[in-house]
């Protein structure tokens, strides 16, 4: 089953391209110290706003720092926020969805109405409000993005659980007296996990985008720490004289988010039984 899914994903050229790009970003983020040609914090007043050249491939910013090095270090922030926010969202959503779907009744009503309430808030404004009140830091941002992105996962998991708990193998487990824990973790969760994986892939891209947006608005990662949204934000002030400061971090955000979405799309197709007849 697992091998089959990987095979199907690898058949999709866009997904493979996305996967390769994600690997590259990962590699860059992990080995940023070794790859970056310059110190991303090093200010050089003699080389302010220099266009791309042999020395500075992607040019320099308003303080003479190397844009390429800052983008390379920015990948760390984006991936960290993307994955940890996704982890928080998936964990919260899965747990609440499991509880709501499995126990049903009053507990289900409470959890699902809470989901409705959370969905009624415009997410971005909620995040902005929270970040504005609290001191913006990378950890706050991760948690806030995670805690505003779990509702779809909860709905997804609940729907899966509702259908799984009527399946005969779950009934059989109940008939032999299996505990709720065993039924949930051995019989229901392993069968509900694939749609969660798809949602997780999409939510990494989403979280990166939100983080970039926050940094762009100045409520995300605080300078001088490099982040893609942050570089873009400063770049917009100089866009007429230094287009490279806006373009390259923009491309980095665009390609990374696109890669996660392409991968998510391919995973969704690979896990959809209706598409299986083709191979």
């Amino acid at each position, binding site marked *: *089953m697992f091998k089959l899914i990987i095979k199907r994903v690898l058949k999709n050229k866009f997904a493979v391209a996305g996967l390769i790009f994600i690997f590259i970003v990962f590699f860059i983020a992990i080995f940023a110290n070794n790859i970056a040609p310059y110190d991303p914090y090093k200010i050089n007043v003699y080389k302010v706003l220099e266009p791309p050249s042999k020395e500075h491939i992607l040019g320099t910013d308003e303080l003479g720092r190397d844009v390429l090095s800052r983008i390379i270090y920015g990948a760390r922030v984006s991936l960290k926020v993307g994955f940890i926010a996704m982890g928080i969202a998936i964990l919260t959503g899965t747990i609440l969805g499991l509880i709501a779907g499995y126990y049903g009744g009053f507990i289900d009503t409470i959890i699902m109405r809470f989901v409705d309430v959370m969905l009624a808030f415009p997410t971005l404004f909620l995040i902005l409000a929270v970040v504005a009140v609290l001191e913006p830091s990378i950890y706050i941002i991760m948690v806030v993005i995670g805690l505003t992105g779990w509702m779809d996962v909860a709905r997804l998991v609940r729907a899966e659980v509702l259908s799984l708990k009527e*399946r*005969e*193998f779950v*009934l*059989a*487990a*109940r*008939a*032999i*007296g*299996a*505990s709720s824990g*065993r039924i949930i973790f*051995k*019989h229901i969760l*392993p*069968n509900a996990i694939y749609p969660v994986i798809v949602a997780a892939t999409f939510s990494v891209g989403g979280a990166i985008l939100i983080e970039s947006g926050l940094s762009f608005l100045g409520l995300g990662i605080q300078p001088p720490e490099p982040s893609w949204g942050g570089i873009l934000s400063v770049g917009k002030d100089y866009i007429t004289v230094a287009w490279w400061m806006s373009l390259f971090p923009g491309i980095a955000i665009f390609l990374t988010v696109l890669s996660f979405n392409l991968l998510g799309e391919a995973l969704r197709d690979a896990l959809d039984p209706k598409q299986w007849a083709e191979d």
Partner: protein
Amino acid sequence: MPLLRAVNLNKIFKLKKIIIPAVENFNLSVDKTDFFALVGESGSGKSTVAKLFLRLIKPQEGQIIFKGKNIWQLNKEELKSYHNSIAIVFQDPYSSLNPRMKIFSIVEEPLKIHRDYTKSEREEIVRKTLKTLGIDESMIERYPHQLSGGQRQRVAIAKALILEPEILIADEPLSALDISLQASLLNQLIKIRESREMGIFLITHDLNIVKAVSNKVAVMHLGRIVEEASTIDLFKEPLHPYTKVLLESIPGFHRRYRIKMPRISAEDRISWHIKGCRFYSRCSYRMDICKDNTPELKNLGARKVRCFLY
């Protein structure tokens, strides 16, 4: 004292405003020497009875008595022993096995829950049980989707039998399999039953199987038992008009009972709600009394029938 007894069971399903009495005034007892068959058409409430026996759903009224105790009033230990004593085989071997578990883990699970064996002891029992059911050793590391329908159903039966239950509930266990597989699985079930005492409660709509293996039969129609008798008596002389229809519907069988029956109409869908006999609209023996009065299940010597004709 019978092993498992249903006393005045009533289970009503409510779907918005529609009320369906899936099981009504249901009395039945199964002993450990019985091979009891419950027959009836689709939607007659047979599977609901199975779920009630397995304690998966709670009846609104009535009791299920196991070894003299109501199964809804057991303490923790008695409940465990009940789960240990009763086993289930479902109809569809494609959905009754967890697709994410290997065959070994599937069959091993009941042992993990109910026995304190070591891993190697469990492994030995699993292998032995699978072997009696003709599942090859090489299968135990596979997943259900890598097995054929017949193999899966054998695995499901192995899982049901591994705790050596006192009663096996089989909810249409063979209807998803082809004829030759049905025969070989039935033979295996009979063989296992010869080696040790175990009551079997078989739910089916296949009367050929009922005739071949069971010793008692109850016929169910829209939530009510309409006839109960020993298999020999029932097939020799069906009493209830519905039983007659059922027997007559067996291909190439009992032609002498062939009588013209009115075709089943869409009206039958509302048969649940008429006051009198629920078979009224399809019955060729119907009388005025049947329309507004519900017949009781009458004792006729060794058998029971629910019809005003008797």
